[in-house]
């Protein structure tokens, strides 16, 4: 008799604990499931707006380089993937967007990297007309010193517009460097490494396009 009572005594708190734990687990699961449910729903709902926003941002950047009047195709769909680590300084495939007007090639837009900036990679987007002239260049991402190297941003200085309309020819090779090295581009006070890196990267990208020629439009 007494023995039985003892056993009950030890069992009861154990059962209570189990019940408590179960209740807590159930509660937590319910909230987690509700939370996940809401997240899935919102994810579903925002999926499309996010994609349109991404496209819009990309298109806005491209249109800064190449006015939308100059082409009539959907260039976000008219792309080709290229891999050229030697010219574009990235092992990943680079998407080349192709602008056309009435089916005639107008310009190519692609991103490239300058690996030798003052601190880290500089990501650059450039648009090049079919005849090899530069439509425009923009720096998308960089970690250069604020106040020195960051003048490559259009927000800080017009320096980057110096590329507009330039063409890479055999006889103007010397132009593609900063003034200090005898070239045609201004260096920044206190920073020559950054502009040098950007010029070199743009020049390499142009060489890549010259190399491939009309193949890029196919």
């Amino acid at each position, binding site marked *: 008799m007494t023995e039985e009572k003892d056993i009950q005594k030890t069992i009861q708190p154990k059962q209570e604990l189990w019940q408590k734990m179960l209740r807590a687990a159930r509660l937590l699961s319910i909230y987690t499931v509700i939370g996940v449910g809401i997240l899935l729903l919102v994810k579903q709902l925002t999926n499309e707006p996010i994609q349109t926003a991404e496209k819009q941002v990309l298109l806005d950047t491209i249109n800064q380089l190449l006015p939308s009047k100059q082409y009539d195709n959907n260039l976000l769909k008219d792309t080709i993937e290229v891999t050229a680590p030697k010219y574009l300084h990235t092992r990943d495939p680079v998407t080349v967007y192709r602008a056309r007007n009435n089916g005639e090639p107008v310009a190519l837009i692609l991103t490239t990297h300058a690996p030798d900036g003052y601190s880290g990679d500089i990501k650059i987007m450039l648009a090049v007309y079919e005849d090899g002239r530069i439509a425009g260049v923009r720096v998308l991402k960089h970690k250069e010193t604020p106040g020195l190297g960051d003048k490559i941003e259009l927000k800080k200085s017009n320096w980057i517009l110096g590329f507009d309309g330039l063409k890479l020819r055999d006889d103007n090779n010397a132009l593609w460097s900063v003034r200090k090295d005898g070239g045609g581009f201004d260096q*920044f006070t206190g920073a020559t490494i950054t502009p*040098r890196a950007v010029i070199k990267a743009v020049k390499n990208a142009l060489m890549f396009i010259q190399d491939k020629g009309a193949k890029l439009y196919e």
Partner: protein
Amino acid sequence: MATIPHTSPFTHNASSVRKVMLQVQIAAFPALMTHIYFFGFGITIQWTLAVLTLIIVETALLKLRNRPVAPYIFDLSGLITVTGIVFCIPPESPWWVIVSGVTFALIFGKHLYGGLGYNPFNPAMLGYAFLLISFPAELTQWTLPSEVSGHHISFIESFHLIFTGQSLNLSFDQLTGATPLDEVKTALAMGVPVTTTLNSTNFNGEQIPYGWAWINVAFFIGGLWMLYKRAIRWQYPVGFLGSLALIAYVFHWIDPDTYAPASFHLLTGGIMLAAFFIITDPVTSSTTPLGRFIYAAGIAVLVYVIRNWGAFPDGIAFGILIMNMFVPLIDQYTQPRVVGYRR
């Protein structure tokens, strides 16, 4: 005045501070002369601007803090601070550079901590670091020594450059350029070995660059005089210059193309200024003999690291400020053992 407690430097009264500070000012005189000889009178204009700023800011802050103005202004410690900054900035930099630098140094480096004696960071270096970070473009454009630019800048020209930013005859780009440290660093980034840069025209084919080297020599002479007068402790310059020379020598010996020789490191930038005039500041450096040595050596290591692998051409300001933070720790572990006491 008597109610204000003093911490280190354990001064008896304002006049003893003044005596040391005066000696420091005198010791900086040869360097000032050399500076004028190579770079023109820009530095005298900067110095005047700095002193005017010092008087205005100091008076305003002492008034705000309800402290008597006269004894604090005449202890000359503020003068050392502004002199330190003036020697660090390019002599033809615009007027607002020195004005904002001195203001920042006094407010954030000294008075916010409670005035002289309570500041953990060297005010001069804090002001200089503020300028380096805030106005990097202005701070990298040094006036070229007249030997290099072939033009000696007159007082009027300096005045024009500082207050209007415009030069009278030559363009600003012709008169200014990168410092030797900057030059070497930029060239290295382009893949040009140090030896080639050091033998290029800007250095007149000498192993040590003109102008800057002679100013460092002048500081060295002034420093020796201060050591003789016992205005500063020997552990600072010996620890600092010795460590820097040793590290530079070892690295140069390993790879002379990447690492400049020790003589270059010792005689460029603000090394001698730092060794004798800045790191010797008793308030912000270690107070024990061994501590002073460790403190100085630590700065040397940091300067070398920043010069070779950092984002800035020179590392004096950051090296000193970082070691300032370690001073309480260094002091704690280097307390001289009391006789008869065993750990």
